[in-house]
């Protein structure tokens, strides 16, 4: 973080505001409550002054200046709404619209489009152009997830800058130049980045759009629910967007302590229960039945034989609590599968401020994608990244050195004195190395599953008991030793050979309440952003009902949760 510079006073549209010297005029205006229209400027990225939308009139300057690239200085007097400034803004918009198609009625961005909004608020209202607009390719599939509309693109470079500055993989670039310049990739290739979805949010026009969401809803028809991504242990803060209570898309919510403002493509697109066949009703031996009957049969089975309760590391804390109670009362084994538990000391914030980051064989880029972006923030602030091991490292571009073993790393890096603190170490064996280096940053082997951090201490499931209670949406391994399996899941059970004796339909994490603990130990609440299938129950409610069928009294916090439902 930059040290606080001495404050200066500037006057913006008559408003006096005091900001640190060097603050960009656009940010100073925000503080003064003055809106300056922008397209290319984004507070998370370096300013480029490409779109010229933020032209303002600064006293004693001969020409209009871009507010996004001008640092304030003492006594600066700025007019954003006088005749000169508004004439400039109108001219920029008029030129931008000279070739931008007016297909807003069929454009996904319509209703949440900065170009639309700025045109209404700051534009001329009518166009003086009579010439035909440029015809360019529309709806070009850039990847399986994203389409590009070249006519709509205004070349603000936000997407290119995101892939360069934030993701660091430079997966998009500006091809050609001048009037024919356009966004693209190498011919014959696709826009492949685990963070590509963020460019959809960043695009200030309808040029980059989600193929999953395209033509499915209008922004003003969406119900928006804040929730938590259930994709991995980072616990990114999200907003669920549903139309008529059916989930349509997920977008990130800013939380500087966790995900900044980003979301990975896996979380954004692949964790949604879209295009996946749902389990819609309880069934016993393949026959659909009622919840009451299915619970009765399940209780009977569970009482009959040695039982193992097996939980997915992605179920909620409340469900885990109920499963633990059931296992204890039945004197059954309790295990987790797949085993992705882990714990870290300190927080993501400590990782972001680290000066040294060591990854012990952990490919953060793939396992916990948004955490990789947070690692990059630390590197941009002057931190150094080291990798140990022969495995894949998605952050290879940013890695200062790779070592075969921890000993080699310690030998190579500490012979000139201690590594700069705070040191963050992630991966297997992090604790030992953390102690050796007296690391002051985030240290540990983080969980990767959504609620993996809550499962710490649970043994790995054995799948050996004849009766198995499987809680959560996993591809459970086949086990012929089981005589009966009871599955609580939200997707239709796939494998016929593994047909469970009893299935109970669950709500998807985005359709229920409950809490998840992220890798650093922060407890976050899920909120239902869409309606679950009629017969599906939240994971914790299904288990509470099962406990009741087993005449096990539900724990006190179960009642609290029942009240929430």
């Amino acid at each position: 973080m930059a040290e606080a510079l001495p404050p200066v006073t500037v006057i913006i549209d008559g408003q006096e505001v005091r900001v640190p010297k060097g603050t960009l005029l656009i940010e100073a205006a925000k503080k003064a409550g003055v809106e300056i229209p922008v397209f290319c400027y984004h507070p998370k990225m370096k300013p480029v002054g490409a779109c010229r939308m933020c032209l303002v009139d600064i006293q004693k300057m001969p020409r209009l200046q871009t507010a996004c690239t001008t640092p304030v200085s003492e006594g600066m007097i700025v007019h954003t709404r006088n005749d000169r400034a508004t004439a400039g803004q109108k001219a920029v918009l008029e030129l931008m619209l000279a070739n931008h198609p007016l297909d807003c009625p069929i454009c996904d961005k319509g209703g949440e489009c900065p170009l639309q909004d700025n045109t209404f608020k700051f534009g001329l209202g009518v166009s003086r152009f009579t010439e035909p607009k440029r015809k360019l390719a529309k709806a070009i599939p850039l990847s399986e997830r994203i389409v590009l509309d070249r006519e709509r693109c205004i070349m603000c470079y936000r997407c290119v800058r995101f892939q360069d500055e934030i993701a660091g993989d430079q997966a998009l670039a500006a091809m050609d130049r001048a009037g024919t310049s356009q966004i693209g990739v190498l011919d014959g290739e696709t826009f492949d980045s685990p963070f590509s979805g963020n460019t959809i949010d960043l695009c200030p026009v309808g040029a980059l759009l989600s193929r999953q969401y395209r033509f499915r809803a209008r922004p003003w028809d969406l119900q928006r629910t804040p929730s938590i991504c259930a994709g991995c242990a980072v616990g990114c803060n999200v907003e669920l967007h549903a139309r008529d209570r059916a989930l349509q898309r997920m977008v990130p919510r800013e939380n500087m302590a966790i995900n900044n403002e980003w979301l990975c493509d896996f979380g954004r697109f692949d964790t949604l229960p879209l295009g996946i066949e749902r389990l819609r009703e309880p069934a016993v031996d393949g026959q659909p039945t009622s919840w009451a009957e299915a619970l009765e049969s399940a209780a009977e089975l569970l009482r009959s034989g040695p039982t193992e309760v097996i939980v997915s590391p992605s179920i909620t804390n409340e469900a885990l609590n109920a499963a633990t109670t059931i296992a204890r009362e039945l004197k059954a084994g309790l295990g987790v599968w797949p085993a992705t538990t882990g714990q870290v000391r300190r927080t993501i914030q400590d990782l972001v401020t680290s000066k040294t980051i060591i990854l012990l064989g952990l490919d953060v880029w793939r396992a916990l994608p948004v955490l990789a972006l947070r690692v990059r923030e630390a590197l941009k602030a002057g931190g150094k990244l080291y990798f140990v091991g022969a495995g894949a490292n998605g952050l290879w571009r940013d890695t200062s050195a790779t070592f075969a073993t921890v000993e080699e790393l310690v030998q190579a890096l500490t012979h000139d004195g201690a590594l700069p603190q705070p040191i963050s170490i992630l991966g297997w064996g992090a604790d030992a190395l953390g102690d050796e280096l007296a690391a002051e940053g985030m240290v540990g082997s983080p969980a990767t599953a959504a609620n993996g951090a809550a499962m710490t201490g649970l043994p790995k499931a054995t799948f050996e008991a004849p009766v198995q209670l499987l809680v959560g949406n996993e591809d459970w391994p086949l086990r012929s030793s089981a005589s009966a399996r009871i599955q609580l899941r939200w997707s239709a059970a796939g494998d016929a050979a593994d047909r469970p004796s009893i299935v109970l339909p669950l709500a998807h994490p985005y359709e229920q309440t409950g809490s998840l603990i992220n890798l650093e130990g922060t407890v976050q609440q899920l909120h239902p952003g869409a309606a679950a299938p009629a017969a599906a129950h939240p994971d914790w409610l299904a288990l509470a009902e099962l406990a009741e069928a087993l005449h096990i009294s539900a724990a006190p916090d179960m009642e609290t949760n029942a009240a929430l439902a």
Partner: protein
Amino acid sequence: MNVQDQEAAGSASPLSAAVEERIRAEVGRYPQRRTGLLPALKIAQEETHFLPPPVIARVADMVGVSHASANELVTFYSMLRTKPLGTTVVEVCAQLPCALRGADELLGLLAAALEIEPGDTTPNGAVTLLRSHECFGACNRAPMCVVNDEYRENLRGKALEAFLAEVETAAGLEGQTS
């Protein structure tokens, strides 16, 4: 995956071992590898004459930048070619003074005579027609064009007619259009 792994992954390189060695040596001269991208692409183009996507991808992998970034550079600089050139290259200046003196008309006449679009090459590979990105500094004799590094100026009236006939001959098209 680091730079070296990426190099190993691309098994059948579109470049010769000698050219790859030159590129490696050139890139190694720069404190930041990506600075070597432009000279690396020039070295590659010496061998392949133009830069198709597999060549761009290979050079990008060797330098350690994304394929998109390398393509950005290639498409920005007009002297890095993305299409093969014909034996005769006709580059029409279309900058302001030439444009005012009928450069677009000249370009149109050449395109019609060669039956191709500016930027393309005749199907027999004889003539490539290009619209120049930069001024050739012969504004006083506009409109003009450059044929294989040789200036052709004041292309109007009789001079134009003779030039069109010459280009058609070069393309092996004489007698077909007139």
